[in-house]
Every structure is written in C-alpha cells, then in structure tokens.
C-alpha cells in the first residue's frame, strides 16, 4: 500500500485499515473508457498503485512521412493527428514554413487565421467536455458537447469547404475569405452559445454530481505541472499563467483583447472551468474579429502576384477565394530551421522544422499537446481511486491520435 493511497483514504474520511487486495486490470485498447490507448493498471483494493500509459495504437508516423513529402503535401497530413482541431495543427506548421521562407502574411489573413483558430478551439473544447462527461457517466454533457460543436463545424464548413479536415491555412495566407453569410452565422452562433452556456452550467458544471466527481480529483500542484511539462488548460488549471497567445502572440492575437483564465486548484474541476471560460473568451474574440477585421488581401503579395490574371478575376473577384500559383507544387525553401508554437485547443503545439534546401523537410518534429500529457497522466494516475481514472483521463482532455501522431 503506497503512502499516497493511505493519505487518500484518510482525506476521504475513511480511517480504516484496508486489507491489500491486488490485481491487474488492462484498461484498453478495447475498453469503453480508454480510447485508442492501453492503460495497464495495478490495483490495490480500489486504489491504483501503478498505472502505465501505453500509447501507440494509432501511430501514423507523421514525422517520418514528413521527411518524404514536399512541404505543401504536409498540410493535410499534419492536421490528421487531431482533425477536431485541424486549424491549429495546420497553423503551427505553416508558421514554421513561413519563417523559413521569410514570408509576411497580410493583416486580413492574420485575422482570418485567428478567426478559424478560435472556432476550432471552441469546437475542440466542446468535444473535450463531451468526452469528459461521458467518462463520468453524464450522457447529456456528451451529447450537448457534440451537438453544440456542430454549430461551429457548420461555420467552418461554410468558411473552408470542409467540416473537419479544413486545410485552410497555406503559406502566405489563407485560402478563402470571409463572406457576409459567415459573419451573420458567427454572430448568431455566438448569441446561441452564450445562451446555451447557462444551461451547461446548470446541468453540468454546477451539478453536485459532476462537482463530486471532479473536485479534488487528480490534483496537480503548480510545481508538479511545471516539472511534468503540462500544457494548455491543464497547466492553467494548476495556476500557471502561460498561454502562447499572450507569451508569443501569433496571427492577430496581439491586436485582440482577451483574458487567460487561470485557476489555482489544479484538480479536474479547475481544468474543466478553464476550458469553459476559454470558450467564453473565444466567443469574445470572435465578436472582436468580425467587428475589427481589416480589408485587404488574404494572401501574401509574393504569391498573389503569381496567380494568373484570368484565374484571379474568376476566383478572387468572383468568389473571394484565392487559388494557388504553380510555385506551391514543389517549392524549395532556403536552408534553415524554425521553431514555432501555437496554442492549440488542448495546449501548446510545437513544430520544429529543419530545412536542407530541398523540396522536402529534412526533419519535421511535431510535439502535440496530448503528447506532453502522456507523462502528466502517468504521474497523476498513481494512488487514485480506480473510478477516478476516467475522470482524470477526461479532465486532461487526452486525445490518443493526437499523442501518437
């Protein structure tokens, strides 16, 4: 019996001797509460003595494929690990490529990137909350999460032409422009979401049952969060003020006004609250964007000039879409390397691209937020109750395909 377990027993108000009964459980990969992940759990009574997180069941070798494909080919590839958050996955990669290429992005495109990214963040958080809800048995939270996400997915579909695999961001800008219809849709969706959030509070966040399952569960102190390298809402739920949007503003975030919710407790409930408030902040950001977005081009001049004039007339003046010049098919950026980070829905996303001057990256390193949650989860799972495995898993918003890449 571990000390931690003993302490837990006492804090739970059960000061009894527990006769050690050990056993092993294989949670996953074929288990309703594991996702594409195997967690090897050694139980002592109801307490998890040891948990080993074993990812890799959905590994798709993005990094290896990245070394064998042209830069442009990687756009749909890097968004595959987390198609629910594909805008961010894409954005980080494109920023790295732009850095190597030395391209400036026009203002309007920057705003549009933020616009798509925030919608993606809301959708990702709703998805995460839905998964957390069903993990603790709350089926309404699950369905609402997915149902409300649909609203945002519709906007992304109208904007980018695809529901989830958007491939929206390209080097030098974005592919499509905002139309009045999308602005109207966004305005309505923001109103709707604000209204719905009140019901979310009633049935999910303030539900005593949900509180009981999340409060004081999986506590990660500030020191631990820093030491283990937690990211995103998990980090901010532990009282660390760190958000790439503030630390190193990209896209249009330096010109947008928003707050970073930070909670001190570090338990599952704090993490959920952070996600919840981030949705509200994202709604504010969206409103600011549709109000303040400047007019102008959505593709860098360097590439815009290369578009044949007849096509420019048809697509840009007709449908407010830019098309790609032939340059994109196989461009060769100069030698160099770039490290970029963006704040994806689940946390910080880091790309390290090394170019050797050929049409393919020499090395593409993709560090996704869930990848960095593996170690956090492994540590958090020690000494908790078996039933808390799922609430910790859910509250970390761990997404196996994203971790495996």
């Amino acid at each position: 019996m571990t000390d931690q377990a003993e302490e837990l027993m006492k804090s739970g108000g059960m000061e009894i001797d527990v006769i050690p009964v050990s056993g092993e459980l294989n949670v996953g990969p074929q288990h309703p509460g594991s996702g594409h992940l195997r967690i090897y759990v050694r139980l002592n009574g109801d307490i998890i003595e040891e948990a080993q997180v074993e990812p890799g069941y959905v590994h798709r070798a993005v990094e290896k494929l990245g070394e064998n494909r042209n830069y442009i080919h990687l756009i749909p590839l890097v968004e595959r690990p987390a198609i629910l958050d594909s805008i961010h996955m894409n954005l980080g990669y494109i920023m790295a490529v732009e850095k190597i290429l030395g391209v400036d992005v026009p203002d309007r495109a920057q705003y549009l990137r933020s616009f798509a990214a925030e919608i993606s963040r809301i959708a990702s958080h709703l998805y995460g909350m839905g998964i957390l809800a069903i993990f603790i048995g709350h089926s309404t939270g699950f369905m609402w999460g997915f149902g409300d996400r649909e609203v945002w997915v519709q906007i992304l579909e109208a904007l980018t032409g695809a529901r989830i695999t958007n491939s929206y961001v390209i080097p030098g800008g974005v592919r499509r422009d905002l139309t009045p219809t999308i602005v109207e849709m966004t305005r309505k969706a923001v109103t709707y979401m604000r209204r719905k959030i009140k019901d979310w509070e009633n049935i999910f966040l303030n539900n005593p049952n949900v509180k009981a399952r999340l409060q004081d569960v999986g506590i990660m102190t500030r020191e631990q969060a820093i030491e283990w390298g937690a990211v995103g809402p998990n980090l901010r739920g532990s009282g660390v003020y760190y958000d790439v949007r503030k630390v190193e503003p990209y896209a249009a975030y330096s010109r947008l006004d928003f707050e970073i919710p930070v909670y001190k407790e570090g338990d599952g409930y704090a993490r959920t609250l952070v996600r919840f408030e981030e949705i509200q902040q994202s709604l504010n950001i969206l409103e600011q964007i549709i109000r303040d977005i400047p007019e102008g081009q959505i593709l860098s001049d360097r590439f815009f000039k290369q578009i044949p004039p007849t096509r420019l007339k048809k697509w840009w003046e007709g449908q407010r879409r830019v098309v790609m010049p032939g340059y994109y098919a196989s461009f060769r950026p100069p030698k160099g390397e770039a490290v970029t980070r963006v704040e994806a829905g689940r946390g910080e996303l880091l790309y390290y691209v090394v170019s050797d001057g050929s049409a393919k990256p020499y090395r593409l390193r993709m560090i996704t937020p869930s990848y960095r949650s593996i170690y956090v989860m492994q540590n958090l799972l020690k000494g908790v109750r078996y039933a808390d495995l799922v609430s910790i898993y859910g509250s970390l918003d761990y997404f196996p395909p994203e971790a495996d890449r």
Partner: protein
Amino acid sequence: MMNLLFDLRYYVLYPSFFNSVIYPGLIFTAILLLTTIWFERKAAARVQMRVGPYYASKRLGGFMQLIADAVKFVFSEVIIPEGVNPTLFALAPVLAVAMSFIPLSIIPVSVIPPSGSVFSIYFRDFYDPNIGMGVLTGLFVQYNMLLILAIESMYPVFVIFVAWVTNNRFAIVGAVRESYLSVSYDVLLIMATLSMSLEYHTLDLAKIAQSGIPGILANPVAAIVFFIAMLMGSARFPFEIAEAETELVLGAYTEYSGFLFVLTMAGSYVGNLVYALVFTDMFLWGWYPLSGFPGALLTGLKASIVVFFSVFLRAVYGRYRIDQALRGGWKYLLPLTFVSLFIGLVVGYIWIP
C-alpha cells in the same frame, strides 16, 4: 359453454395467478419494461438534442425498436467464455431475474371490496383483518413489508453470483461494488420502511395505502431516503456504479451476450418496478380511494410514473464514485433515517389512529 367460460374466468382472475402472471406480474412487467426502456431512450434523446428510436415504427415514435432489439438479442449468439462452468453461466442470470420477479406476487396492488368487483368472489380467500377487506395480491401475508424487503435483498447475492461465474476481472470489481452498495442501501430501505411501519402501526402495506393518509406527507424524510435507496438498489443514475460502463465495461454482466444479456438487464428494471410499487403503496396512497381492478390500474400508473422519473435521471446525472455513494448512504442518509424514525413515532402517535 358458459360454465367453461366462467371457470376460465375464475382461474384466470384468481389473484394468485392473476397477480403473479398477468398484473403486475410477468406480462404487465414485460410490457412495462419495454415501455420503460423506450421512455428512457426517448426522454434522454429529447434532453440531448436527439430524436432517439424512430425508424422502427415512425407512428409509434419508435416503440417497436425495443421489440426489434429484443428479437435481435434473442437470436444473437450466446458466447460462453472459456474456463467457466457453462451450466452455472447460463443459470445465473435466470436465477437473478427469477429472484427479482418474486416480490411482484406479494405486493398488494389493490383491495377487493366484498361485492361489485370482478375480484369480489375471492373476497374471503384474501381477507385482510387489518383493513377489513380483501387484498389483491398473489400471496396474502400480513407482514408483506418484511417479506418483500427480505426477498429483494436477496437480489444482489445473485448479481454477485453472476459476476463470480463469469470469471472476469471487471465483473469481479463490479460485484465487489455491488456488494458494498447493497449493504448500504438495504439498511436505508429497511430503516425507511420501519419508520413507516411505526407510523402506521402495521407491517402490512395494504393497511398503509388503505389508511388514506399519503405517506409522503406524513413522513417526507422517509420518502426521500426510500427513493434514493431505490435508485441505488436498482442501479439507476446517479448510482449506476456497479455497471459503470466507462470504468468496468458492464460490471458484473461484462461477459454476457445475446439472450442472457437481456435477462441481466431485465433484472435491474424489474427491481426498479418492485421498489416503485412499494413506494407507491407506502408513500403515494397506492390505489386509494379506488378499489378492485381500477385501483390496481391506479397503483400501476403511479408506480410507472415513479419508474419513469427514476430512469429520466439518466439525462441529468453522471455517476457517483463508490466511496461517495457509500459515504452519502452511511454518513448523511442513515442519520436522516433516524430522523424519519422519530417523525414516524411522533406523527404516528398524534395523527394516525
């Protein structure tokens, strides 16, 4: 011919047969069970921005979906895992369901007036001296409260048995949880029932219902405790702890498939109905002021509403952790039952003759 019909009617309506087979026994329970599951899915769907069962019968709002599901389950293969005793594996869920059905033939669902009702011919056979009327029940016992609780508390034993024969770790964990829970909710049920029996000076459910004083007004604390214990006892949300899909796959029933799985699922719903009937008799006036067959229908209606409400909670709650449920039971609800005992004593002394 007429004689034959009369004989047939005599045997069919004989409460020992009628109550245990037709109403509220096997047939009614089977129908109500399907309706409950249908309602559960439909109600959860309404709350959750969905439609729920629909295409199996559009006019009936997808009611036939349940029949289709049942047919599918009956014809799907029953997989018997390696290393289990096949006989016991097949027998365990059957025993569990059988056990959960037995109380239905003891619960009084109505009274038989001396004349004027189809059941009046059995007035003498089922005469209850406590209320001076016949009681419509399969097996008339003056101490039916005790008997129902005793039989119902056997049910978890069979759930544990089910888990034990499957030789699956998740099932064992589920069984352990069930055994912890059953101990704590049984105490609550017994204490709540006891406070009612003190209040009404009887161990006969029929007398409580027939007294015309609704228990929910006379002793609301006992009603709350009984209702929560009922949710625990029949594994309804937020106490669906022993099955806990995302934690334990399906708890004790993990290894079951096909028709045996239907049986395991039926067990908890029948248990819910039994508790709901007791709840109706004890707290919601039962059949009062009706009697005979209409009274029985009224009891069934009230019990159905109780069942429907308890399955509706699926759309509102997640599940508690086992230690939270136990702490809630022992630390908060058990003291409440003492309060209800006290209320029972005082109110019973002042108000109820």
